[in-house]
């Protein structure tokens, strides 16, 4: 396509653009004028747009445009408006008692909805997005609670946490009986089997139940209570049920007894406002295990 002079196409009688590829010539068929005009208008529009709106990236910022508009600021304004709209409702929530919320279906729905989103943002990393938990992180859907499952107890745990460093946090931990030299290896195996027997799990052949009971009575009853029923005051789990935070097999139990456990639940007071914490408590309570 070196030949650039235009000429007339002999077949159609129309002028060509002068472009030719392997003997095929391009007819000069201009675009309709309205189309071309709209095309130029869009270019003009784009230039105006560049100037009026923030568009050009600079080294550490960007041009701000003529009116200082930015979509980020827009979002901020809209979020603020949203907060204002929601503010009234959240104020009602903040003022109501937990029992009142449970009784009012509209408030309950609001608290659950709010609680669900806040849970997703803050609690899901440990407890899972549906509160299913994981090893060491309690499942909030079941009916077993380390620190109690009433609305007030759940609220308190969320507010202050466990071993969180907050002055009102739940304290108490599983001691490291093996590491600290309180129990010897075979004693640990025996008591581990005894604990398994408490919830009806199978025990090792030749396991001495009486010895296990004795070790348990001397070392464990203080926290886990007579018969291992647990104590929510100290976060000591019920050892007779089917729910195990760190696993129920012998190896896991031996590890727990030897090295101890002290999982941390952060305190949310100060990080989330009281109405939000209330909503979260209601949501967690409604997951199905609340008492």
């Amino acid at each position, binding site marked *: 396509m070196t030949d650039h002079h235009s000429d007339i196409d002999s077949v*159609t009688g129309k002028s060509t653009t002068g472009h030719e590829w392997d003997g095929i010539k391009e007819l000069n*068929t201009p675009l*309709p*004028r309205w189309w071309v005009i709209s095309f130029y208008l869009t270019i003009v529009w784009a230039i105006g747009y560049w100037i009026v709106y923030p568009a050009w990236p600079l080294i550490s910022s960007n041009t701000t445009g003529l009116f200082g508009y930015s979509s980020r600021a827009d979002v901020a304004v809209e979020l603020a408006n949203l907060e204002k709209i929601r503010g009234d409702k959240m104020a009602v929530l903040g003022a109501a008692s937990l029992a009142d919320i*449970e009784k009012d*279906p509209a408030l*309950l729905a609001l608290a659950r909805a709010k609680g669900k989103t806040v849970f997703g943002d803050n609690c899901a990393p440990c407890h*899972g*997005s*549906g*509160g*299913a*938990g994981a090893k060491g992180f309690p*499942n909030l*859907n*079941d*009916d*077993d609670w380390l620190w109690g499952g009433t609305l007030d107890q759940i609220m308190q745990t969320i507010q202050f946490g466990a071993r969180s460093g907050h002055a009102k946090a739940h304290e108490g931990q599983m001691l490291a009986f093996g590491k600290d030299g309180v129990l010897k290896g075979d004693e640990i195996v025996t008591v581990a089997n005894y604990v398994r027997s408490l919830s009806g799990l199978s025990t090792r052949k030749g396991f001495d139940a009486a010895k296990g009971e004795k070790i348990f009575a001397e070392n464990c009853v203080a926290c886990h209570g007579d018969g291992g029923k647990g104590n929510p005051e100290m976060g000591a789990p*019920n050892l007779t*049920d*089917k*729910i195990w935070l760190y696993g129920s097999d012998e190896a896991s139990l031996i590890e727990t007894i030897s090295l101890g456990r002290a999982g941390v639940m952060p305190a949310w007071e100060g990080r989330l406002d009281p109405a939000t914490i209330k909503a979260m408590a209601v949501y967690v309570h*409604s*997951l*199905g*295990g609340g008492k």
Partner: protein
Amino acid sequence: MNKTVNPNELTSDDDNGPLYVAQKKVYPQSISGTFRRIKWGLMAFCLGVYYFLPFVRWNRGLGAPSQAVLIDLPNSRFYFFFIELWPQEVYYFTGLLIVAAVALFLMNSIGGRIWCGYLCPQTVWTDLFYAVERLVEGDRRERMRKDKSSDPMKLERISEIVLKHSIWLLIAWWTGGAWVLYFNDAPTLVKELVTFQAPMIAYIWIAILTATTYLLAGFMREQVCTYMCPWPRIQAALTDEWALNVTYRYDRGEKRTSVKKAAELRALGEQVGDCVDCYQCVAVCPTGIDIRNGPQLECIQCGLCIDACDNVMTKIGRPKRLIGYDNDINIQRRQEGKAPVYRIVRARTVAYSAIIAAVGGIMIYTLATRSLLDVNVLHDRNPVAVRLSDGSIRNAYTVRLLNKSGYDRVVAIDANGPANLTTHVVGIDSVTPDRPMIVIPRDSTSELRLLVTAPAESNPEKSIPVRFHVTDIGLGEVATATDNFVAP
């Protein structure tokens, strides 16, 4: 018998023209005749329905809208006389679209672009705008003369133009106004509109539709049909040799001669065509084409050229329908001396009718048996199953109950499965064990969290089907849904 005419000789030479030609103004002449009367009738009917339907009332009882046809966006409801549709039932619209599309195919296989010529909004409003133009500025010749005259604008002419555009705008504005009435209670909205109390969005939509009506029917006109609408091109691919189209019967019309010459030649016993080349068919055509050039993309098949030519034929004492609804097969047959055949019952018309009947039948059936109580169940994914302290297994479900009736209902939920399941709804203390009762307010949806528990002894398998029954305590109406109960 007429001499055989090669249709190829008839096509004009603009086949090599550009894809787009600048609009040349069309000045359709007024005409009267059968097809014009049909068009007037259909126009009155279509516009009447469009403009006044929102004002038709329909009693649905207290608290429900009393508008016969209403699209209630804020509440996500669609009302059509006795039918009320919820958002989850939009599949009815899918059915409606299928029926509409196939009906278009059916029309097309019977009589070509009947839709374009008589029913399409673009045709109807353009026709109306032309009528206004004719009324204000006069018929074809007058309008052409006025547009051409280089005289400085006289006051009379200016007032004519202003009047025409005012009437156009008035119609366009009323068109936009009628549109928004379908989305709100019409009498209330009209009151709000005139007192400037209506929501902004209503004014915006009126403005948009006023502008589009004014532009499309007043200025773009046949350009919309030729360049913007996809249907002419689809239609061309769908049509077959049996479909009746507005056709110039060239076998009868050619060779064209003047009335006088034709008479002379006929007296000599010579064969002449009936077309007297009077260009009446071209003058009345709203898309400005010459039907005698054969089937054309631009022809919307409005039949006005049939009326025009019929008038001419009557005047010169020749048989009518030199232009008429016909197909190529018959032109061929007539040239071969055979009688024309018309066949409406054909494989494709039967197939289209069958599809319409089937889809329509399904829609009517589902509408008639549509339940006013509905339940949707969604199994919780995280966690799928929970083991409780006594070893029993619990699954959680999000249950959505829909009460589409006009009264509040009390319903009971129970879950049936092989295992001995118990049911509990979060936040509701069951009076009867395992069968929680819930109140669903009329015309609304309730969402619940439902917990289903299998006792430890039952030892359920990995996954067992459960059936949820939602029973209206008063009426006994039952809605069911199935899901699975999963063991950890």
